[in-house]
């Protein structure tokens, strides 16, 4: 029985939360000052640790997240720092993990749970669709479910079957779920902190091929910025949500991408620049809620767009984006919007994935097709 675990003050709670910002700044002092090379994995790990310091109702659980630190090491060290009560392994049962998290959220906690891989989350689908997504609505907001379901997703790592699915469309299609997916190391930190602070359930899709991507990032500065926002109160968790980023400005056409496709889109834009074409790259960041404003503004400016995603194109997030842009930008378009997505086949075996995944060449071909001659 730990006296340090209290009820979240922001949802379903009646006991005030014990905030421990001092502890977070203690963690900060151990870090080198200024921008450093940081991996996405480290940024996510730091975000979890800082959130657990800041709010004792934040709990982390799932499969292999305790002693091992997760198969991708995202929860590394959390059990050692916070104890087995706050970061622990569960039996191997995904529906059980999500269902128990629902109950914990009902009873004042903020669970952050890990689905080990995209395709291993499917046993939990009923809990996610029937309860996580619907509880707030069916109780008219009397019951809030401030929980985060972290899902490593996407391919590009030579993984075997069931380890490389892009499952974001299932969640994005379900009313009542927020769907976040970071594409930069800094966003990994920012967006996970904001997801944990959110009173709505968030499906947090982590592009697994980017876990080892390094950027020069000042984690201390990100932490300070986040803690300042939290201290202001009501605006917590709303700096990234619904706000797409212009990852690279350009004038000739817009590449719209999210998660693992953002670096591919940026590489394509770099290559296009060498050929004299200026492509703007939009990083969607939160699929739900979607930032129509930023995306439409870019397409209105450039008049041409390609949507890029690893997931199968049929009935997907990419089809939704095309539909939304077409509805809002029809009179500004010089060409039909193109998509570069995974083919409509089950995710292929490792030696075939390079033919399946959207790559720079396929993106440039699509850009070439945007009716430039007239």
């Amino acid at each position, binding site marked *: 029985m730990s006296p340090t*675990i209290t009820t979240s003050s922001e949802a379903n709670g009646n006991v005030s939360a014990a905030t421990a910002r001092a502890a977070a700044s203690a963690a900060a002092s151990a870090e080198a000052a200024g921008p450093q090379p940081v991996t996405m994995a480290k940024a996510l790990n730091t975000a979890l640790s800082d959130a657990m310091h800041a709010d004792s109702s934040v709990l982390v659980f799932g499969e292999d997240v305790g002693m091992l630190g997760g198969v991708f090491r995202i929860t590394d060290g959390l059990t050692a720092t916070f104890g087995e009560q706050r970061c622990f392994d569960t*039996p191997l049962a995904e529906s059980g993990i999500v*269902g128990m998290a629902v109950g*914990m959220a*009902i009873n004042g906690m903020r669970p952050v749970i890990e689905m080990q891989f995209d395709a291993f989350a499917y046993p939990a689908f009923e809990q996610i669709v029937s309860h996580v997504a619907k509880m707030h609505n*069916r109780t008219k907001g009397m019951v809030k479910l401030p929980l985060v379901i972290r899902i490593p997703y996407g391919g590009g790592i030579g993984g075997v079957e069931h380890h490389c699915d892009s499952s974001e469309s299932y969640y994005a299609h379900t009313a009542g779920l927020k769907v976040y997916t970071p594409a930069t190391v800094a966003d990994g930190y920012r967006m996970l902190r904001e997801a944990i602070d959110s009173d709505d359930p968030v499906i947090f899709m982590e592009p697994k091929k980017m876990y080892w991507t390094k950027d020069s990032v000042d984690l201390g500065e990100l932490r300070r910025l986040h803690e300042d926002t939290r201290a202001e109160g009501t605006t917590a968790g709303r700096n990234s949500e619904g706000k797409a980023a212009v990852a690279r400005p350009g004038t000739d056409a817009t590449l719209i991408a999210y998660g693992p496709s953002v670096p591919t889109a940026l590489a394509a834009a770099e290559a296009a620049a060498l050929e004299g074409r200026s492509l703007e790259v939009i990083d969607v960041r939160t699929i739900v*809620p979607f930032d*129509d404003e930023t995306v439409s503004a870019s397409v209105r400016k450039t008049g041409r767009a390609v949507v890029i995603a690893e997931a199968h194109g049929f009935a997907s997030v990419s089809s939704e984006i095309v539909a939304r842009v077409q509805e809002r930008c029809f009179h500004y378009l010089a060409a039909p919007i193109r998509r570069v997505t995974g083919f409509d086949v089950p995710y292929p075996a490792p030696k075939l994935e390079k033919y399946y995944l959207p790559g720079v060449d396929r993106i440039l071909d699509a850009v070439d097709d945007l009716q430039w001659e007239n």
Partner: protein
Amino acid sequence: MTISADHTAPDTTSTTAPDNALTEAVKKFGITVEDYMLPARHQIQMVDPDGRLKPEGEQGTQPGHEYPVPGDKELLEAYERLVVGRRVNDQNSALVRQGRMAVYPSSHGQEACQVAAALCLSDGDWMFPTYRDAVAVMTRDVDPVQVMTIFRGDWHGGYDPLKYKVGIQCTPLTTQLLHAVGVAHAAKLRGEDTVVLAMCGDGATSEGDFHEALNFAAVFHLPVIFFVQNNKYAISVPLAHQSVAPSLAHKAVGYGMAGERVDGNDVVALLAVLDRAVKLAREGSGPLLVEANTYRMQAHTNADDDTRYRESAEVAEWRAKDPVNRMRTYLTGRGLLDGAAEERIAAHAEDVAAQLREGLSEDVPVDPQELFRHVFAQPTPQLKEQSAMLADELARDAASDSKEAGK
């Protein structure tokens, strides 16, 4: 009781929960851990269908499975709640026939289970009911009309789960058992002595979440009582198609918890078994499974035709085991119930029925804008757009209606 012989269940709290009941029973009666966890050889029954208290030796108890008869005050309250519950069931079915409610899955015949499930809990405890457990929810003193909102058709739920510590009346089978596990786990982490009672039916024990919930509760050693109302049918499919286990209570031992089966139409035995289960769970015994042997006297819902899958003789056989009549005979025989008390109780039941008739006859105005209000804590820009679209559509409809009227 978690088995700790071969694979110690990790206790996530720093204090080890004392398995007093288990240790005591094993020591006192010289029985094995398995004997303690397995249900007694016969179901626990204290009052027979004719309303007679059974001799102690014939109640189905055995060493380690002994239950004192609950006190008179508790029994009288249970009887009053039984009468009210029966009236609620029949009133609601009538309201469906009159078209005032879309549907009502009645617990007629299962009122003893409904009443005992609620009365065994304290105010700080939680209950996780199913769609058929409206009477149990009302016995937890939730406003009857709020309980029936789910079937009235204007929203998916009416009462505040946090205020009453009663989960939503869950439709997807056994998904709520995991929520019960989570509520118990959160309480345990904070050092609270909350007990959680999670309800499901016999058919639901086939679901995967049933297994996951029992296993999680056992592994994390949580104070959850899994209360299975075995009413013999899952819509039309009989129990024999769901499970060939010796009993549903026998499933407990596979998870390392104690199981018991009890006559589900005998509220005395139900209270005795559930009261002890709550006490053990609160003292740190971990989860328990209680199977109540009862019968769904009516069709699954008004939309179902039970003559297609069961004989009326079978229904008649169970009518003779009615839980309300049995308790009335027993209490009258013991001199605890007289005409005046009966009258007062009947009047109470009529009050509740009137409340339901009144609350459900109201044509509750619905607000179309409410569609968008509760999806998230704050509506997204997309929901705001859709909300404006609907408002505009409705305004245009209203304008054209008034134009029509003006002609």
